[in-house]
C-alpha cells in the first residue's frame, strides 16, 4: 500500500492534535488548576503561567471537603455492589439465552435492547415512590437498586456473546458422562468464561461508577452515603468555590476508574463494539 508523504503526515498529526486537544483539554486544565494557588486562579484575564505550582490542594482538600474519604469509599462500595449484583442476575440469564431455544427468546432480547434506551430520569417518580414504600430512601440501596436494573440489559447481551463462544460439545460430553447441569456450570462454564465475566464485571463497575449522580441526588440526602459526584456537587453552589481543591478532589475521585480502564480497555472496547459492528 502507498505510504504517506511528509506533508500528509504533518497534516494528519496536526488534525489529531486538534482532536486530542478538544478531548483532553478539560482534564489537563483540571490538573493544572489543581496545582495552582487559589489567588493565581482568581486572576482575570486568565494567566497561563504560575510560578509556584504545588500539590498543596491535594493535602488541603481533605479539610475543605471533610467527608471526601467517605465519598470515595462510597463510590467504590456502590459501584462494586452494583457490579456484583448485576453479575448475579445476569450470569444465569445470559447462559440461558446462549444455550437454549425457547418461545419469546428473540423478542425478549429485543425488549432488553429497548429498555436500555430508557434513562432513569424518566422513571424517577415511581422509583421514588417504590423506594419510599420499602423505606429505602436515603440509604445505599436507594442508589444500588435502580443502578442494577439499568445495567442488566447490556450485560446480558455482552455475556451472552461470551457464552456462545464456548463450544457446546464440551457440555454435551459432560452431560452424557452423567454430570448435572449445576456441575457443568461450575466445572466447565465458569472456568472457561472467566475472562468474559471479568469484562462484564468491569463494564458494570465503570457503568455504575459513571451513573452515580442522578439517583444519588434524587434518592439520597444523607452525606454519609453520598458518592463523589454528588458529594462534590454540593460544594459548587457555595459563593467562593475553592476550584483548585475541587479539581484535585475530582481527579482523585476519577483516578481509580481511569486506571482500571487503562489496563483493561482493549477487552472492554472489543466486547462492546463486536456486538454492534457485527449486528
Amino acid at each position, binding site marked *: *500500500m502507498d505510504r504517506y508523504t511528509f506533508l500528509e503526515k504533518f497534516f*494528519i498529526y496536526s*488534525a*489529531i492534535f486538534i*482532536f*486530542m486537544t*478538544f*478531548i483532553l483539554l*478539560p482534564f489537563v*486544565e*483540571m490538573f493544572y488548576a489543581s496545582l495552582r494557588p487559589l489567588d493565581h486562579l482568581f486572576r*482575570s*484575564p*486568565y494567566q497561563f503561567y504560575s510560578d509556584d505550582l504545588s500539590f498543596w490542594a491535594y493535602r488541603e482538600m481533605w479539610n475543605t471537603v471533610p467527608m471526601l474519604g467517605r465519598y470515595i469509599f462510597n463510590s467504590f462500595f456502590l459501584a462494586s455492589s452494583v457490579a456484583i449484583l448485576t453479575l448475579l*442476575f445476569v450470569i444465569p*440469564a445470559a447462559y*440461558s439465552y446462549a*444455550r*437454549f431455544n*425457547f418461545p419469546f427468546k428473540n423478542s425478549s432480547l*429485543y425488549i*432488553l*435492547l*429497548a*429498555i436500555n*434506551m*430508557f434513562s432513569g*430520569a*424518566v*422513571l424517577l*417518580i415511581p*422509583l421514588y415512590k417504590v423506594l419510599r414504600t420499602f423505606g429505602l430512601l436515603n440509604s445505599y440501596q436507594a442508589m444500588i*437498586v435502580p443502578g*442494577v*436494573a439499568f445495567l*442488566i440489559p447490556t450485560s*446480558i447481551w455482552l455475556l451472552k456473546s461470551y457464552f456462545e463462544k464456548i463450544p457446546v460439545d464440551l457440555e454435551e460430553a459432560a452431560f452424557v458422562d452423567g454430570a448435572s447441569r449445576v456441575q457443568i456450570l461450575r466445572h466447565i462454564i465458569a472456568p472457561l468464561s472467566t475472562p468474559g465475566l471479568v469484562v462484564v464485571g468491569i463494564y458494570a463497575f465503570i457503568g455504575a461508577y*459513571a451513573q*452515580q*449522580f442522578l439517583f444519588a441526588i*434524587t434518592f439520597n440526602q444523607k452525606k454519609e452515603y453520598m458518592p463523589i*459526584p*454528588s458529594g*462534590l*456537587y454540593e460544594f*459548587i453552589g457555595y459563593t467562593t468555590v475553592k*476550584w483548585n481543591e475541587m*479539581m484535585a478532589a*475530582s481527579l482523585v*475521585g*476519577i483516578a481509580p*476508574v*481511569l486506571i482500571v480502564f*487503562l489496563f483493561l*480497555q482493549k477487552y472492554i*472496547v472489543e466486547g462492546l463494539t*463486536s456486538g*454492534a*459492528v457485527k*449486528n
Partner: protein
Amino acid sequence: MNKKLRSFNSPTFLAYALIAPAAIYILLIVAWPVLETIRLSFTNSSLAGEDYVGFENYEKMLSSKKFNKIVTRTFVWMFFSVSLKLIIGLIGAILLNANLRGRSMFRVLIMPPWVVPIAIGMLGWLWLYNGYFGIIAGVGMHTGILDGPFGFLAYKQSAFISTIVADVWVGTPMVTVFFLAAMQGVPRDLYEAAYCDGASRWDRFFKITLPQITPVIITMSILSAIWTFNSFEIIWILTEGGPRGATTTLIIDTYKQALGNYKFGRGAARAVVVMILLTLFAGFYLALLARINKKISHG
C-alpha cells in the same frame, strides 16, 4: 409424577427459570414504574395525595406555549449535538485509522470523557466556562475576541451552545470508537485490489470505507440520538436548565416538574411524552437492526 419430572428437566422450564431473576427484577424496577408513570399522568398526584383528573395534565401541557417551546428546543439541541458527534467522531476515526506511529496510544487517550463519571467531567467544564477566570474566556480576552469577562453559561444563546459542546465532548469518544471498529472490520483485500487498480486514497475512502461502514453510521446516529435525548446530568450541572429556561430540554423539564415542585402528576405526563418519543426511536432502531441483519444473512 414421571411426567412432572420430565417437564422439570426440559430445557424450556430451565431456560425460563434461569432468566426469571433478571426478568422479575426488570419488571419491578423498569416495567412497573412505566405503567405507574402512565397511571400517575392521569392524576394530580403530589406529596399531599392524588385524585383522578383525566386528561387535564395533558391538556394543560400541550396547550402551554412553554411546553411547545421546550419540545422544539429539545430537538434543536439534539440535532446539533448528534450531528457534531457524528461528524467529529467520523473525522476522529479516520485520523486514528491512519497507519501512523502512536495511533494505538491516541486510541486509548480519546476514551477518558466516556469512562469518567459525567458529573465529574462537568465540574471541569464549569471551571473552563467560568467567565472571569476560565481558560476559554481567558483565551478570548488575550486574543481580543472578547473585550472583557464573559460568562458562557450566563447568557441564553451561549449557554445553549456551551451545553451542546460539553455533550459532544462526552459523546464523541464512543462514536469514534465504534466507527474505528467498523473501519477495521472492512476486509483488507478490498483496499489492496483497489490500490492495484490505481484508486487514490480519496477514492478508496468514498468507494470502499464509507459504503462498508454505512450500517454502523446509521445505527450510531440513532443510538446517539437516544442517548442525547436522555442527557440529563450535563445540562443539570452546567445550567440547571437556565438561564431563564434557555437550556431546559424535555428531560430537564420532567425532572423539575416532578422532583423540583413535587407535582408528580404533571411530571408524569411529561415523562409519558418522553417515553412515547423514546419508544418511537427504539422501534426505529430495532426495525433497522432487523433489516441490516436480514441483509447480512441473505448475503
